[in-house]
């Protein structure tokens, strides 16, 4: 039986017990103001019992920790499976494995005829109905990772600045110095432009989960579901979906992978410069 049922019955039992006590005592044995106080507790426990339907997960931590910052879970939310093709999550001694499937669908409505658009929406409807078990289909818009490109630009700029200082120290000809300064200016402009706007990418993926009492049990069941989803999707759209593996999964789970750190720090730095200067 579900844990929340026990919590509900327990709290309701306390409420009814207190009520019986309250009613059983005569006015001479328990003064009316105390009876009202006891009644207040009865109502409190009854409301708490009903709330347990939704809030069992916070009740115990809230009572035991008695802090404003309540820790619901101190364990990591997930970890990558040994085969790197699923993430695992543990709750109540049960493992949930989730497998992600990338659907390479690169069609745009702007290049479709009316009939093709109608057919496409029907295909999407069929895709959504592919799986008998719950499956999640996601359209993800995320910030393109320009970290490497930005890092290369920064390296180039620092080497150009180094070259400039060398030329100044060595009393190099003016035209050579101007040429390096021109290059430096160009790289700076390029860095400003790259950081100025976010470039976005769109990706479509599906995810399926399966539970198991052992890790491998959950993983193999989730992989089985993913394979069914892949074959269904492939037959509908004629594309080759693939299971996402390794670090690429993090994009679907962690928020910072949606907005790469240096891309965004470059933008923030630029915004601060604009505000200050």
């Amino acid at each position, binding site marked *: 039986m579900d844990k929340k049922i026990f919590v509900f019955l327990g709290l309701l039992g306390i409420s009814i017990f207190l009520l019986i006590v309250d009613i059983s005592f005569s006015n001479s044995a328990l003064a009316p103001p105390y009876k009202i106080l006891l009644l*207040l507790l009865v109502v409190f426990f009854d409301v708490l019992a009903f709330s347990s339907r939704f809030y069992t997960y916070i009740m115990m931590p809230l009572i035991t920790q008695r802090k404003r910052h309540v820790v*619901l879970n101190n364990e990591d*939310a997930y970890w990558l499976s040994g085969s790197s093709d699923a993430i695992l999550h543990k709750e109540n001694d049960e493992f949930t494995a989730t497998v992600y499937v990338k659907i390479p669908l690169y069609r745009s409505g702007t290049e479709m005829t009316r009939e093709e658009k109608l057919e496409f929406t029907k295909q999407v409807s069929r895709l959504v109905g592919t799986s008998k078990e*719950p499956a999640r289909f996601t359209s993800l*818009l995320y910030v393109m990772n320009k970290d490497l490109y930005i890092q290369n630009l920064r390296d180039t700029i620092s080497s150009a600045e180094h070259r400039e200082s060398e030329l100044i120290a060595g009393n190099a000809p003016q035209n050579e110095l101007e040429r390096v300064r021109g290059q430096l200016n160009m790289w700076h402009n390029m860095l400003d432009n790259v950081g100025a706007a976010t470039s976005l990418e769109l990706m479509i993926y599906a995810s399926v989960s399966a539970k198991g009492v052992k890790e491998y049990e959950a993983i193999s069941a989730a992989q089985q579901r993913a394979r069914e989803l892949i074959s269904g999707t492939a037959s509908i759209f004629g594309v080759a979906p693939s299971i996402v593996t390794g670090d690429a999964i993090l994009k679907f789970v962690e928020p910072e992978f949606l*907005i790469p750190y240096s891309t965004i720090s470059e933008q923030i730095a630029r915004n601060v410069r604009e505000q200050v200067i």
Partner: protein
Amino acid sequence: MDEEAIIYLTFAAIVYVLIIANVGSFGGGIYTYIALILAFIGIGLTLVINFADFVLFPAITGLFGITFQPYPNYKITKGQEAIVKNVNGLYYATGFITANLFSFVFKAERVQENEDEKQVSATESWERALMSINFPFKFHVISSGLDVQRVRDDLDGKRAYQEFQLSRSMQNTNINESVIAEIQRKISVIQARIDRISQDEKPIATLMYVETTAVGVSEKAALDALSAQIKQLQIALSSLDVQLLRIVGRELYTLFKFNFGLPTTYEEAATNFDRQT
């Protein structure tokens, strides 16, 4: 209201019935009235928790400044409207919006007269919406197949009931024409759904929501940016004819947990979402 809610309400109501039935045993006089007031406050609170806990819960946590840590490095804000992650001094705030959380095909209450046109324009509306968004977001559709026979039986039952209502209305000479037209429309909607099942279309249940992440140099900056993004999404996606409400409270926690493990059965998914729809 689902069966579980009815069971919880019935058990919780036992206490109030007992209080009202024994209202004289709390001291008499003014204490009787106080006991009655307490009972009605309890009934009121229970109903608010049942129908609008997404208002009450954030109000309580906001008032007492209670925040939650669902997993290490994550924090649910006191307003219960966002989950914040701190990565190297940058704050990533994630929020959710219902994308109607409606049932995509079979629970829709009306059949669109110009369904083809709507489907054709859907791709364009979606692409227009995407083009106006310059921050990361995910549009999730969780779908689950339903038992064909069960859905068919439900629809047959609904059709029989509507036909009974129609025949009763026809016999009544004072009945308004519009009432008969409304019943006939309902019958045709149910019949259309039965026909779709007969044509081998699989009944499915879906849950749709949008997730977006904003970044900032402080928690407040990230939350402000998130609010702005959510407003922008609500405007951009409004052309898709979906109800876009910001998700707060326990449903935020549930949707957040979906990132690490999806529900594996339809019942599991459905029991989490019976409000805010």
